[in-house]
């Protein structure tokens, strides 16, 4: 598979360099930490600092969610690899406004271990850190073991809720509580048509048969929980919506936030076709969409596929969702 790359081993650094240049008004480097970035708006005294992060290959995740009303800083790992503790610590120091720092990251063994180590290092420097681990991928473990689930595209909503809570100068404990509530109410599931391409090997990391699709894929180019017969857009959407609705169990009149997300090479036309069906299904269930994000928000290199995330809102979450934000990947006034 062909790609616009120079030396593979430089891909992440060059991506970061390009991102800082593209978003000079929003992102700034952190002195001495080439794998961490901070918001130009910087931390505010008394505001809880929000630090996010994870592996590369999810662009615009994660730096796309750094900015006013969102995260204060980000730590960036190698492709599909959690960042080491050092950049996480650097991001934490850069985000610190004296009111504690909130770490949010997806539930992957690498992220958990590295963020834990960084939190201990920050605590040793007198910065209280609390962590929220996202677990929105409903396909990745049964509901009885929710805490074992992966954190995937729902991160975007959790970042937003937490970023707004921090921006409203809520105390650390409240920010943690709201971010946890957001992840508890986020339900994501993905389907892939083709695997992504490993940068090193420049070939797909596994094969999906010509008449098959992978159900329940994450965002690291990995296989899903099952292969299934390839179906059309509506049927694929239904497969996901059925699972989401059965877990979410919304009441009539409930409001949700939606994210219809390309995993990489799936173009927006297909996302809109999926969104049409998604909304038909929600309407039939009496559920309203308060806000929809649609596009390339949380990707898996060039995987062909999509995920749908629905976050069940309450008045407080809806208000935080509507709070203004300005970041590379999410702007609203």
């Amino acid at each position, binding site marked *: 598979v062909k790609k616009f790359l120079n030396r593979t081993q430089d891909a992440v650094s060059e991506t970061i360099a390009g991102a800082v240049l593209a978003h000079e008004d929003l992102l700034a480097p952190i002195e001495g930490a080439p794998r961490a970035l901070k918001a130009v708006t910087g931390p505010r005294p008394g505001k809880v600092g929000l630090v996010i992060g994870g592996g590369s290959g999810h662009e615009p995740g994660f730096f796309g969610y750094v900015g006013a009303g969102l995260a204060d800083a980000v730590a960036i790992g*190698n*492709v599909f690899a*959690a960042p080491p503790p050092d950049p996480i610590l650097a991001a934490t120091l850069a985000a610190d406004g004296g009111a504690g720092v909130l770490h949010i990251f997806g539930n992957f*063994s690498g992220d958990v271990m590295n963020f834990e180590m960084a939190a201990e290092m920050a605590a040793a420097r007198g910065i209280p850190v609390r962590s929220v681990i996202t677990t929105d991928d409903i396909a990745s473990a049964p509901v009885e073991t929710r805490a074992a689930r992966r954190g995937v595209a729902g991160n975007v909503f959790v970042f937003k809720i937490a970023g707004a809570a921090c921006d409203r100068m809520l105390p650390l404990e409240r920010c943690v509580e709201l971010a946890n509530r957001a992840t508890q109410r986020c339900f994501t599931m993905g389907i892939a048509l083709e695997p992504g391409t490993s940068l090193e*090997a420049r070939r797909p990391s596994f094969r999906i048969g010509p008449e098959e699709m992978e159900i329940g894929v*994450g965002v690291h180019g*990995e296989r899903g929980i099952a292969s299934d017969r390839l179906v059309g857009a509506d049927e694929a959407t239904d497969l996901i919506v059925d699972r989401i609705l059965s877990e979410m169990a919304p009441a009539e009149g409930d409001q949700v936030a939606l994210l219809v997300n390309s995993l990489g090479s799936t173009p927006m036309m297909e996302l809109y076709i999926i969104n049409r069906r998604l909304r038909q299904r929600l309407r039939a269930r009496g559920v309203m969409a308060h806000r929809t994000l649609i596009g390339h928000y949380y990707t898996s290199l060039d995987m062909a596929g999509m995920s749908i995330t629905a976050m069940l809102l309450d008045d407080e979450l809806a208000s935080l969702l509507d709070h203004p934000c300005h970041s590379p990947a999410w702007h609203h006034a």
Partner: protein
Amino acid sequence: MQMFTRHDLTLLFRSLAARMDEEQDYLAELDGEIGDADHGVAMSVGFAAAAKALSEDEAAVPMLADGMMLAARALLNEIGATTGPLYASALMRAAQALGATTEIPLARLPEVIIAMSEGIALRGASKPGDKTMIDAWAPAAHAARAGLATDRDVAHILKDAATAAAEGAKATRAMMAVKGRAARLGPRSLGHLDPGAASAAALLDSMAQWVTVRSGPASS
């Protein structure tokens, strides 16, 4: 008595790094099947960074324990990921085992294996049967402990440890993953080798080979 010096530590890590480089594609393939295809590059880049740090600071950091800490930090900060904290933890525990000395008897090397296994188990909270690198490290540590008790030749003890690791790694094929990325695949992880166990077996094999060469013609 043959000694294991600070320079030997550098040489050992160069061998490990070379071996991980050789195994990179194979490990990537294994991780592609049930993970995210990056285990090859993580191990290769991580051990290369550790070896480089050990070489460059050989004079400035003469103690074995400090060397191990250096290697741990270099590896961790190069790769992060799952492997970073696990092997950093392994090497930090090995540093404790080695202590503030510039050399140890070569015969004490099996202790390093035991310490590394403990470090990984502590950080990763995984047990044998979870289909992780512990399925290679735990039997290797067991063999190392047994070997130390029976006063066998160090080269043979390491060979036994490597064999145990290889068998442990092979056994992961029949396991369903409980920890790590592959755990999300549930039964789909069956029938595949765990990449972390495979790389562990390769590390231990490389260590055994290095010791065999280092200790000269076998004495038993």
